[in-house]
């Protein structure tokens, strides 16, 4: 281990992250530019680069809080969460957990999830016509491989409506708590990111599929919302919608 190099890098990094001054003894001053000024170029760049990364990932949160409050939040986050990522694209993944306000946390979760949808793995999806190749006897045992871009979120606030208006650059509606948790799905079709609100039974059904449920288990679970004689029809209709929307990559028989 190159011990001298390690010591110098340690001192430099402690300056960037905690403004510790040990590195100063290693830096030469010139007549024109002092060691402090020289180090400050790196110090400012460190914080502003991470700040920019957070701005890129959380544009609506920035608009909602305003530039000044958002900047304060970023600097608190930066101090508490140094980057451990090779690519700065992943910096900011803990912001939703960092935010104590439950609505702001939901808004941050939404924005981070949208970024995950944007560059999730693509690939071909299961086509409706392929269902005809499956024997009706085996339907109950069908399992589903979901597209990598599919994410399910539940909102306790009118978070999605606020986000939409913020992104349209118009005044957002007043913050309002939902009477009950509102289910949404986010996904990507080809290169287009999409999102949709879900009735309660569909939200449950999608969660079940994401957790590996069979079509039979889906039908059983849906009985909570639908009469037993109508459940097969409801399940088939949901499945048709999910396949058409490109949420399912493949269907296997258990």
């Amino acid at each position, binding site marked *: 281990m190159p011990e001298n190099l390690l010591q110098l890098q340690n001192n430099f*990094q402690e300056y960037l992250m905690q403004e510790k001054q040990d590195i100063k003894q290693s*830096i030469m001053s010139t007549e024109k530019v002092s060691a402090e000024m020289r180090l400050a170029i790196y110090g400012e760049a460190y914080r502003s680069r991470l700040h920019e990364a957070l701005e890129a990932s959380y544009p609506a949160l920035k608009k909602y809080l305003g530039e000044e409050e958002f900047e304060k939040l970023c600097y608190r986050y930066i101090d508490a969460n140094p*980057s451990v*990522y090779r690519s700065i694209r992943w910096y900011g993944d803990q912001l939703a957990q960092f935010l104590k306000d439950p609505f702001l946390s939901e808004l941050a979760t939404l924005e981070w999830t949208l970024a995950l949808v944007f*560059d*999730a793995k693509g690939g071909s999806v299961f086509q409706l016509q392929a269902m005809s190749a499956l024997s009706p006897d085996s339907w109950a045992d069908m399992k589903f491989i979901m597209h990598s871009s599919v994410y399910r979120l539940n909102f306790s606030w009118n978070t999605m409506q606020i986000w939409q208006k913020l992104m349209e650059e118009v005044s957002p509606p007043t913050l309002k708590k939902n009477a009950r948790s509102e289910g949404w799905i986010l996904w*990507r079709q080809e290169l287009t990111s999409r999102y949709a609100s879900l009735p309660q039974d569909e939200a449950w059904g999608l969660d079940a599929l994401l957790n590996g449920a069979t079509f039979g288990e889906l039908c059983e679970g849906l009985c909570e919302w639908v009469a037993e004689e109508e459940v097969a029809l409801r399940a088939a209709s949901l499945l048709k919608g999910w396949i058409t929307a490109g949420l399912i990559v493949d269907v296997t028989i258990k």
Partner: protein
Amino acid sequence: MSKKPYLGFGLGLRTEHYDAILKQKPAVDWFEILTENYLVPGGKPLYFLDKIRENYPLVMHGVSMSIGSTDPLDWEYLKEVKALADQIQPAWISDHLCWTGIHGKNMHDLLPLPYTEETVKHVANRIRQVQDFLERKILIENVSSYVTYHQSQMTEWEFIKEIIEQADCHILLDVNNIYVSAINHEFNALDYIKAIPSERIYQIHLAGHSNNGDYIVDTHDHEVVDEVWNLYKKTIEYHGKISTMIERDDNIPPLKTLLKELNYARKLATAAK
């Protein structure tokens, strides 16, 4: 040593230009991609990359190898770099002669190294390991710097020359970075340029910077300045023709503005031969 490849005149590939590149198929000989932007599972970045690769040669330029760090090399990262290289078959892969963090942290900056024998050995050894893993020689780029360490025992050009020779790698010479550092550290940029062995220089970066009066910050957000053009011309006169590109990272102008700058580089290089 085999004859070095020559790609001509290229640009850094930026998302703002994806559509224009696909529609207009501009007269650019090649594009340089920022490796980390494409280490994602899928979506638009990889879609456009594949489309652009159909029409243009590419080179990969990374910012996260942290070749000068005292942390162990990040093999997971290198595996991803290798997988991307297998997919897009770049003419070459480059990263910077710097460190970006230790103890598992990333400062997301190209931090300068002390120019010592200890560092030369350390970095050259790591470049060799990376080259063995990637099964190709890599290009190492000189970074601009704002500090000089008391610990340094040699000039920056002596440091680079020793590393590229010990590691048997190539160099991506950033002429703007040399100019920036020459002002910040008060040395003669041509002493630096002439000290680098011609056969090792595979690529040149040209870029703009911000002049703060007493010092210059390498912001890559302006057009190339006359002093850097002049230095570029002298570089080509001294070293012969070298694949050259304009690197704009911020304040990205329309593609046609960069094409004009690139044509100017072409004109200067032709006149310098």
